[in-house]
């Protein structure tokens, strides 16, 4: 599926400006690009998080589509319910048309709090797309660690100092967990590669059944970087294989982007304030080496899965 920006720009925007996300936030970019990919009317639900809070400050809404509020843990449950209700009403002849059902959640609302409802909705086989924008912490409530936070990151619940070098644990690989649900489409994308992201969203909307998209979303506040570099920063994280781009279609793993040269993760770590403590001590450098070894091991595993080795 070709991505033609000139054609896409003719469509009416589905997330307007005037929302209160930070300048340089990647989440609205991701939402705009994903909703651009759908040709049908959409119903959107969003888990509590930055995206929900900043786009729906009463009496305003930035959503130019049907939007439902719900709690932190049940975005997937709500949207799967909407889909089931729609199917029932359609059978009864009370509603017509065709809709896409989309749920958005941050990494807190997806990896941790909303995980059970997401897993349930995927298992029940609803025709819906779940999009996780992964910024690696609970940014909305003040940068607390989540299971998506990278090793060594400084957050308000894993503060770096004399006794600590930031988060001790490693990231949970949610995309792999979702692939293990044996659903028709699972993909990992990044805000830095818009063609890849829009094409994956188009592909997801063309498939019937449960779909999951995990998208890297830099957070200028929690990661502490200059808002201007949102896109190149995500690109470096993709190139370093920290966030590889791949898709799993009906159980077939496929890399959609293979970086030409693989920079060390230090390259993007030094641009982010949440890692700056690691560069000050020998212990910190040890943590970087551990994180690099983890990234390399996961990349090797992925290459083997995708049949690239």
């Amino acid at each position, binding site marked *: 599926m070709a991505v033609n*920006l*000139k054609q*896409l*720009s*003719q469509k009416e*925007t589905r*997330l*307007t*400006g*005037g*929302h*209160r*996300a*930070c*300048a*340089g*936030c*990647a*989440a*609205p*970019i991701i939402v*705009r*690009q994903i909703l651009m990919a759908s040709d049908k009317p959409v119903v959107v639900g969003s888990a509590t998080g930055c995206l929900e809070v900043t*786009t*729906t*400050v*009463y*009496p*305003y*809404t*930035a*959503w*130019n*589509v049907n*939007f439902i509020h719900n709690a932190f843990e049940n975005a997937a449950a709500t949207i799967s319910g909407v889909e089931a209700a729609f199917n029932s009403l359609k059978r009864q002849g009370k509603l017509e048309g065709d809709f896409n059902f989309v749920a958005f959640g941050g990494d807190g609302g997806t990896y941790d709090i909303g995980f059970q409802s997401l897993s349930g909705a995927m298992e029940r086989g609803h025709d819906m797309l779940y999009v996780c924008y992964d910024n690696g912490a609970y940014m909305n409530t003040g940068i607390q660690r989540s299971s998506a936070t990278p090793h060594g990151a400084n957050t308000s619940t894993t503060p770096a100092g004399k006794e600590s070098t930031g988060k001790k644990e490693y990231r949970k690989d949610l995309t792999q967990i979702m692939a293990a649900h044996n659903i028709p489409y699972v993909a990992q994308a990044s805000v830095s590669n*818009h063609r890849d992201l829009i094409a994956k969203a188009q592909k997801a909307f063309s498939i019937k059944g449960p779909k999951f998209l995990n998208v890297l979303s830099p957070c*200028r506040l929690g990661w502490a970087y200059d*808002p*201007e*570099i*949102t*896109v*190149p920063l995500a690109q470096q994280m993709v190139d370093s294989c920290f966030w590889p781009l791949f898709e799993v279609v009906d159980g077939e793993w496929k890399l959609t982007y293979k970086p030409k040269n693989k920079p060390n993760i230090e390259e993007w770590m030094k641009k982010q304030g949440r890692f700056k403590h690691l560069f000050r001590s020998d212990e910190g450098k040890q943590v970087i080496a551990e994180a690099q070894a983890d990234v390399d091991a996961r990349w090797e595993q992925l290459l083997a899965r995708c049949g690239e080795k």
Partner: protein
Amino acid sequence: MADNKKIKPNATAKEIPMAGIITTPGNAKEFKTGDWKTRVPVHIEENCINCLICWVYCPDNAIEVKDGKMVGINLDICKGCGICHNVCPTKIKSIVMKNPD
């Protein structure tokens, strides 16, 4: 259903739509976030190749496009993040960030 725009701050429960539903989708565009910015993007038309990369990456939908051509920047909602300047692929950037006078 009641119009959200007409709701006054001291409205009673009966004057507010049921469950606080917002009946005017996308009305956030009337909320001006343009005063957040410390730097102003300026579009230089002669360098622009209308690739629309700035439009697809603008988080605030501030890039105005008409018939596949970039026609300007809506400074009323632009927060001045500078992403458009950064992603602009032309050799001499078609969008530059300027400090306001």
